[in-house]
């Protein structure tokens, strides 16, 4: 654990990308294979699931620290992170006996994984013993691992760069090997950094290529003819892998979504083996797209029943072909991949070829983009026709060119602390608009202010708190903010009867008084369809 703790300290102690890569590379050069495998597992955001429950962990913590439950909860609310709160409180305990040195693999494989089958008393015994015996400086990491909430501000890309630097294996190869399912351990790590990839996993997807927002005028991209324009759909980005008679559907986050979209898996049987399609899962009936709220009914449903399959049907909007007849196509130009894609998915049920939006020049394309909303899309995607399929978010070849959002002026009503690095600032806000003489909440927004504004608003909230409901505070209705959002749909779950999509703060309207805020009626007028 010591080496991993040292790595964590170095990653946490710098904001420099290069310094993080160096820290990672240094670690992987010296770490034992088994430890390195687990380090990759945690650093790539994977979690040990179902070890112990958060509630039982809190119970053991209260027992161990002897704090009154309310004082423990207040401390937790102040720190904002359970693992950190626990570490800060536990460090206060007896320093004697904190001499248990375990390697990361010993800790995980020897102590933690066996907890899965164990009874509550056995789980408690193991965790509280480790709390008492691990060196104080390892408690935070240990708690992060146990609570399954390990995040250190290292992106997959940085991790891959660090591994590449240490192993000499190419970044693209490493990124690909890190996709899909694998069991961390010494063998996994040896395969990960081995020069040649003997045993390809048949389920393994490719790293997703991501677009960057286009902020400049598109004219800077050169001639419109060099670009493929298509609608920017708002669904679940996915990769459909068809190999050896089996189908695997992957989310962008690297989750295998098997069983969730049985109609797409069934449809994929019409694809030849060795085919990988990049696309977007959309709620779609025979004629066209359904509201995003329909898709939401499918999200998180692991085994949808017949009724939901009927009322919330989906389709795959195909964007790209990454593998054809078992050959990796990613280095080939997009125009070629698209041609092959059209051939391969022709006749495959529930699989649509993303429409190419053709325009003679940029102004004409910009005019077409204005139709985006009426087509239930967010704008256009621009992809360079001779570009390869890259890895991660690399600027230059793929751009998302969204339509300008809707805006509304709304009044701040409630605030609560954020998470992670904003855990002790009020950064989660609820906004309201006028419904007659009442202010009704219509949107929650978490982003859009700069750090200075956040801190200023945080102070204001603390001084203008009216009531407290747990972590939530209601504030005097005095401040007006302009919110940007993508659309409005009816929502019986909200008191206002509507829900806005992707609300975020556009700016703090210090020039407006509360009476100047918008009305619910205006918002209802924007309801899609």
């Amino acid at each position, binding site marked *: 654990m010591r080496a991993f703790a040292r790595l964590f300290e170095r990653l946490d*102690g710098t904001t420099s990308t290069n310094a993080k890569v160096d820290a990672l590379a240094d670690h992987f050069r010296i770490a034992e294979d088994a430890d390195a495998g687990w380090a990759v597992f945690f650093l790539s955001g994977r979690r040990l699931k179902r070890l112990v429950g958060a509630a039982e962990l809190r119970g053991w913590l209260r027992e161990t620290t002897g704090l009154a439950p309310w004082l423990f909860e207040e401390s937790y609310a102040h720190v904002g992170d359970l693992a950190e709160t626990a570490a*800060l409180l536990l460090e206060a305990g007896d320093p004697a006996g904190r001499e248990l040195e375990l390697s990361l693999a010993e800790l995980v494989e020897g102590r933690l994984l066996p907890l899965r089958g164990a009874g509550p008393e056995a789980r408690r015994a193991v965790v509280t013993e480790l709390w008492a015996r691990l060196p104080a400086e390892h408690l935070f990491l240990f708690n992060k691992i146990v609570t399954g909430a390990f995040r250190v501000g290292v992106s997959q890309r940085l991790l891959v760069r660090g591994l590449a630097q240490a192993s000499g294996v190419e970044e693209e190869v490493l990124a690909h090997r890190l996709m899909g399912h694998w069991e961390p351990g010494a063998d996994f790590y040896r395969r990960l950094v081995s020069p040649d990839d003997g045993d390809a996993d048949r389920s393994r997807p490719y790293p997703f290529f991501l677009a960057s927002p286009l902020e400049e005028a598109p004219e800077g991209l050169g001639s419109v003819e060099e670009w493929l324009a298509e609608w920017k759909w708002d669904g679940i980005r996915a990769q459909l892998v068809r190999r050896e008679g089996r189908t695997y559907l992957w989310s962008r986050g690297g989750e295998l979504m098997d069983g969730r979209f049985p109609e797409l898996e069934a449809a994929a049987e019409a694809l030849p083996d060795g085919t990988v399609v990049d696309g977007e899962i959309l709620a779609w009936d025979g004629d066209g797209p359904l509201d995003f709220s329909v898709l939401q009914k499918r999200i998180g449903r692991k085994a949808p029943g017949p009724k939901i399959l009927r009322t919330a049907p989906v389709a795959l909007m195909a964007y790209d072909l990454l593998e054809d007849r078992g050959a990796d196509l990613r280095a080939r130009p997009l125009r070629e991949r698209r041609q092959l894609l059209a051939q391969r998915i022709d006749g495959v049920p529930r699989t649509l070829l993303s429409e190419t939006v053709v325009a003679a020049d940029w102004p004409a394309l910009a005019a077409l983009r204005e139709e985006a909303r009426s087509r239930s899309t967010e704008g256009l995607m621009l992809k360079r026709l001779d570009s390869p399929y890259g890895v991660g978010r690399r600027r230059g070849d793929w751009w998302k060119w969204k339509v300008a959002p809707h805006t509304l002026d709304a009044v701040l009503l409630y605030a609560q602390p954020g998470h992670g690095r904003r855990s*002790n600032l009020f950064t989660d806000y609820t906004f309201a608009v006028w419904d007659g003489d009442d202010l009704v909440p219509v949107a929650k927004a978490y982003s859009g202010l700069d750090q200075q504004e956040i801190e200023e608003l945080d102070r204001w909230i603390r001084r203008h708190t009216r009531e407290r409901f747990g972590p939530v505070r209601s504030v005097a209705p005095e401040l007006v903010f302009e919110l940007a959002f993508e659309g409005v749909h009816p929502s019986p779950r909200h008191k206002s009867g509507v829900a806005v999509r992707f609300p975020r703060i556009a700016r703090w309207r210090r020039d407006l008084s509360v009476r100047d805020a918008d009305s619910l009626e205006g918002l209802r007028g924007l309801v899609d369809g």
Partner: protein
Amino acid sequence: MTDRDALLELTDSGLYCPAGDFHVDPWKRVPRAVITHGHGDHARPGMGHYWTQADGVPILRKRLGRYVPLDGVAYGEPLPFDAVRVTLHPAGHILGSAQVRIEHEGRVWVVSGDFKRDRDPTCAPFEVVPCDTFVTEATFAYPVYRWPDAAEVAREVHGWWRECADAGRPAVLFCYALGKAQRLLAELAAYTEEEVLLHGAMVDLVQIYRDAGVAMLPTRAVTELGRGADFAGRLVLAPPSAGGSKWMRRFKGASTGFASGWMQIRGNRRRRGYDRGFVLSDHADWPSLVRTIEECGARRVLATHGNTDVLVRYLREHGVEAAPLATPYGDEEVDEAQAEAAEPND
């Protein structure tokens, strides 16, 4: 506080002692002000007359103006007030910081001002003053705040400075200009004799500490090095307000750190974007707050600053009469940073 026995009342100008007709750390203009210490949220301009502990006199003059009507008194020496006996006692917060003890008709109230119990070579150590009512600060009143040993923190700072030097980078350490900077300079002397560079806002304050006989590392103003100076391997102290300013541009490739009690929480370290956070506070941590309240034997505790609710509830559960006192003293970290960084940059 409406009880007739109260030696202090909260007015909209500040904490007022009717029996002695003076205020403690008032925030609006009043004729007579007793000041616990020189931080901006406690020592405000515009009072008719000031009293403070003798070591704090040059600090108040620096911050409020050279000619303000101000008397310094030694710790334990009574102030020239009729009817009430008022004495100042070490608070261990910064140079010249004092608790205010007020005795009247057999009752004793003590206002802690800001205080800490941890060792600090730059000021007199906190003195436990027995009292009936204790007005305490509660800036860090959560059990998660427990300070590490300052010498150990200074060793970490020194280690970071060495790492920066090895990498050919400047190390810019943000800290409050009054108190924290001097404490760091004193603690670091255990590890090196090397010169430390100062932001302009700190130069006079460091000199005041030197004049008071506090041993610290040698220092020099950044501006003395002139244009194009090489800062690689140098340690620079600056107030938090200098972060992100034009002034910072000269420190190319600098690693940045922040020394504050708030750095105990990782979220604070990360969102402020400093490379390193060092846990060093001039306020009482949770164990110190609890211990001090126990030791001073107060039957009643009034809590100011910050997290009063938690402390008040905790004390009530432990049989101590306690209530929050709404003051505008350093309500949150930002205020403290602002107040202390509001140093005139001369």
